[in-house]
């Protein structure tokens, strides 16, 4: 086995070793048990006192969602205006301009919803101030929002019958102070010591070996990059994200950043087991997610290390694999592994260009985002998986001749309706908007917009189609990575992806919590020998089948016209 592949395996094993105790720790934090980070207590109390919050106040699912949506709306308005007027504000050593309204709309939403789709380059599109108090701030709180929502789900699962899903503010603050902040400090320190800038000075200029003078952007980047990775945000300081040598200097930082992508999403699966005292359930969920994750990694590593057949035909040796769009210091395997990690978790940071992935790998990362529940974004990944569970519970309940139930609560028409709508939503947003874009490209290529649809695509044919499909899939999954090669900083893309981002974020949080709220309110039915155990591997397989079938049925034609057609045309 090559060292490169061994490297990815070690990274993954190390992630799991760290995620397990972290999961245990997080369960303790939300249970209010004693932990190492109790020194944060005074800070939290101060925050609660200033904000006039009683962290012990219970909330039902409607109150919980109301609190969540209100504060998110406030953040959106704040971010939008900050970005619009950033050129008039301090800490702008490079003299970058303010964002256009449509770009500010897109950027504010994009970071609010934990997506971090970037239709700009950080070096020129933002100032140090907005990088810090808009971008980095939203990267913390959007991740904390996701975790808080998930803890509400945990509470519903934990109690037999309850109205109380916990206190949103309490979880929001504690996710930040006890989980995101401490971990970010560790990762940021590692990055800083490996050469990632943490400076408030503006651009530096260097003279290259060829004797040219080059301007190099800098900034207080290490902290932002840490939370970008840990909070499944993905929006980089620099335009090319972690492919940039200052954002991800070497193989070691690459390993650390990869671990940071997966760490919290995996740990939250374990936290579920510890928090609701059903470790077997967590184990089964982890097994299902890992099963698909490992398959995807294997496919991508195989195709990326094998190289591009078109180059083979030219008689050019590609011992390092398909290196187009990849960094030599990281290698093909590490980039392939990252590509799956970042799309599984709705992170969206990249250490190589996904546009340059071979067709199958490109298809896999799109598929991965369509599923969007293999570990998934912090908090929201498990919420998405919960929707699949509800549908699996319903169908398998029928198959064993019992009215479907999950964790002692009957799953009935109302819950199925909500779950079905959410399943529909992804298909509608992704395919509907891709179809709209494809329609514009074909039927109105020369329409009088600032950027004509004919100029959107850098690649013709199947690959161009994949670029559009990827953009909306990434937006819906709140992933934020791009196939790039797409002219996306214009009104059409800024506004349409902005809409997809908002709907793709909040409806999939509202729906599972609504289902949980309804379920938790019902009478608890104790398990009997006739109950279908949801913490069995049989049920795990059932969920896996549901995930595969629903995704395949919804997206096969689209994937067929994009990556699959491309694959068959060059292999």
């Amino acid at each position, binding site marked *: 086995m090559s060292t490169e592949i061994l490297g990815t395996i070690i990274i993954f094993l190390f992630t799991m070793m760290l995620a397990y105790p972290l999961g245990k720790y997080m369960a303790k934090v939300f249970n209010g048990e004693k932990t190492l980070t109790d020194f944060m207590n005074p800070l939290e109390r101060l925050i609660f006192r200033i904000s006039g919050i009683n962290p012990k106040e219970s909330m039902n699912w409607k109150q919980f969602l109301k609190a969540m949506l209100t504060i998110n709306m406030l953040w959106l308005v704040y971010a939008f205006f900050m970005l619009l007027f950033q050129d008039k504000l301090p800490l702008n050593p490079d003299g970058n301009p303010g964002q256009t309204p449509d770009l500010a709309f897109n950027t504010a939403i994009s970071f609010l919803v934990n997506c971090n789709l970037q239709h700009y380059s950080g070096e020129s599109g933002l100032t140090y101030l907005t990088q810090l108090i808009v971008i980095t701030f939203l990267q913390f709180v959007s991740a904390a929002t996701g975790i808080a929502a998930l803890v509400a789900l945990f509470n519903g699962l934990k109690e037999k019958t309850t109205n109380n899903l916990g206190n949103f503010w309490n979880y929001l603050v504690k996710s930040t102070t006890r989980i995101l902040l401490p971990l970010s400090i560790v990762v940021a320190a590692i990055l800083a010591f490996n050469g990632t800038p943490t400076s408030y000075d503006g651009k530096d200029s260097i003279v290259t070996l060829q004797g040219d003078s080059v301007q190099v952007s800098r900034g207080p980047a290490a902290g932002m990059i840490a939370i970008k990775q840990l909070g499944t945000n993905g929006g980089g300081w620099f335009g090319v994200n972690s492919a940039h040598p200052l954002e991800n200097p070497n193989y070691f930082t690459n390993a650390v950043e990869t671990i940071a992508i997966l760490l919290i999403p995996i740990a939250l699966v374990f936290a579920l087991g510890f928090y609701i005292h059903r470790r077997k359930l967590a184990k089964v969920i982890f097994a299902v997610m890992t099963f698909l994750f490992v398959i995807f990694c294997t496919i991508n590593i195989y195709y990326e290390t094998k190289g591009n057949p078109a180059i083979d035909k030219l008689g050019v040796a590609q011992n390092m694999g398909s290196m187009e769009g990849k960094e030599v210091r990281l290698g093909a395997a590490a980039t392939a592994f990252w590509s799956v990690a970042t799309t599984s978790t709705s992170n969206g940071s990249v250490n190589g260009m996904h546009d340059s992935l071979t067709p199958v790998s490109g298809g896999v990362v799109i598929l991965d985002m369509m599923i969007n529940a293999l570990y998934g974004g912090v908090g929201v990944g498990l919420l998405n998986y919960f929707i699949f569970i509800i*549908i699996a519970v*319903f*169908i*398998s309940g*029928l*198959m*064993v*001749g*019992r*009215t479907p139930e999950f964790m*002692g609560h009957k*799953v*009935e*028409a109302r819950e*199925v*309706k909500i779950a*079905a*709508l959410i*399943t*529909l939503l992804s*298909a*509608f947003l992704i*395919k*509907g908007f*891709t*179809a709209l874009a*494809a*329609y514009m*490209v*074909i039927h109105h290529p020369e329409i009088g917009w600032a950027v004509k649809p004919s100029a959107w695509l850098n690649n013709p044919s*199947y690959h161009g*189609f994949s670029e559009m499909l990827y953009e909306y899939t990434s937006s819906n999954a709140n992933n934020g990575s791009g196939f790039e090669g797409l002219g996306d900083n214009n009104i059409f893309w800024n506004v349409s992806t902005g809409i997809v981002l908002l709907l793709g974020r909040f409806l999939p949080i509202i729906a599972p919590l609504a289902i949980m709220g309804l379920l938790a309110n019902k009478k*608890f*039915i*104790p398990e*009997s*020998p*006739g*109950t*279908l*155990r949801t913490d*069995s591997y*049989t*049920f795990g*397989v*059932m969920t896996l*089948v549901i995930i595969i*079938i629903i995704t*395949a*049925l*919804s997206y*096969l*034609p*689209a994937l*067929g*016209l994009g990556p*699959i*057609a491309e694959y*068959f*045309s060059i292999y």
Partner: protein
Amino acid sequence: MKQRKRSIKLFDPALTGTAIQQSFIKLNPALMIKNPVMFTVEIGTAVMLVVSAWQAVTGDTTQGALWYNITIFAILFITVLFANFAEALAEARGKAQAESLRKTREDTPAKKITATGNGFSKETTVVASSTLKLGDHFVCEAGDIIPMDGEIVKGIATIDESAITGESAPVIREAGGDKSSVTGGTKILSDRIIVKVTTAPGESFLDKMIALVEGASRQKTPNEIALTILLAAFTLIFIIVCVTLKPFADYANTPITIAAFISLFVCLIPTTIGGLLSAIGIAGMDRALRANVIAKSGKAVETAGDIDVLLLDKTGTITIGNRKATNFYPANGVSNKEFIRISALSSMSDDTPEGKSIIELAKSNIEKSDTSKVILFSEDLSGARFIKFTAETRSSGVTMANGTRIRKGAFDAIRNMTVKAGNTVPAETEEKVKLIAGNGGTPLVVAVDDEIKGVIELQDIIKPGIQERFERLRKMGVKTVMVTGDNPLTAKYIANVAGVDDFIAEAKPEDKMNYIRQEQSSGKLVAMMGDGTNDAPALAQADVGVSMNSGTQAAKEAGNMIDLDNDPTKLIEVVEIGKQLLITRGTLTTFSIANDVAKYFAIVPALFIASIPALQSLNIMNLKSPESAILSAVIFNAIIIPMLIPLALKGVAYKPIGASALLRRNLLIYGLGGIIAPFIGIKLIDMLLGVFM
């Protein structure tokens, strides 16, 4: 118990005829819209009709060949008809089933009688049974057919209920008590009764059941609604898939005909389960009816499948009838003959089944030793005074003309009597009493003039095969609870031997109620069976209450099912019918959705092969041509519906092997099978079409 089999062949010619006729009537869009999946297919069919007509008139060829479009239209039309046929056939079968029950009671002459202040008028008027109203009274005499369901208010009669239950032995019904209910269509064999009509015409349970089967008042069960929503969501997903395919295809420079779009859509949406869904529900009701159970709603049958706890009366369910005397144990110094004589004497006026069984046993013992016959029947009973059993004395017996007091009763009652009179209790008797009780028997102690003479042993006879049935229930996850008036010791013994999980001993009517409440408060679903008026509250409280047809009107009103056979073990069948109903739905849904995988592989390459030859690699079935591929998929989609009708109507078998094992099994058969079957089917149809195309 002999059960009359009412089997109707699956495709009975007469029923099939009606069903075919109905399948066309059901094409009415106003009726179709209740089934969103098939409704969309109907719209697709209409569109294809318009396309074909347009082509025929204008000669336009951009939409493919005319014969091809007409073929697609025809297949889609047949698909809709097949789905309608499935539902119509299920309805027809259910209706035939119910009609055969109802036939007997239609327009029987009824001898109406009017109630007067303190009795009934002498004269009767003969009217048609259909004119009887709720609260009317009628008279029935030997030889009459009872015209209407009702309750006996006066008299006692033997009745042949075989028309309803299939049970040939006549039953006794009398005013007052728990056996006062009569059913229309049954025949009086002896005596005369006055009956009060308890149901309005057209509202008897049977009428309600027929309406449920006919679909007129058939309401979807909550579970069915949830499944319909899920299927509608799948349909919407495929609408999105098909609509977005148009710009996608434009982008890829691939013209796609309307026929191809509609074919893809119809193949993808879950038409198989969509077409069979209501048939499955109706067939479930029909199966209940076939088991001679009248369910008041489809929901009741489904709930039965979820039952966690089953309350069963000991007598008649777990044991055969009543306790029987099995042994005489005289005390020391009392001869066997003498003890049998006094035991028999003590029971001479005892009409309880126990008392009768003592006489019977005494007779058979005496017949064995001929000489003693004289002793028993030469006894002079003139002047003897019989003492009835009362709850207070807990004993009964006889006081002979000469003043000899013979008493029999529970051990402690007789013991108190004896001790009070200053006599001692023989040690061997006391020992025997304990032994009998420990073996699940009931000891009856007999005393003469307050002196204990011995013990009679009464034993319950446990029904053969009952242990296996309880074992089966346990595997289904149902807890069985025996309800009995026996003391805890006896109850425990019988519970052990019969294999029930729990028992309620010395049960009073309110104990049942409390037990049900307690189980329900912990979230369990409870089923019970009952017949008496004092069971009514518990029947109403239980999630599934099955009342016996012989039970009182109150009991029948309270429960949500009625068992025409009066068979207490029927609940077990009802539970299985409920489970079967859900399983059939679940497995066919899985099968239907799994089918889509193969259909994608047939249609998607066919759509794009002209402009993207690379996608030929996806044509893994190696179908001949795009047209043939699409036709094969659509034909398969249509014929799978009638092929699955037998399964939908008979139901998928339930196997009590544990939930996870059952899921694995059904997932393998209907999930994996659902993926593989269409690959084979479509390929075969394609080969067949190759002969013509």
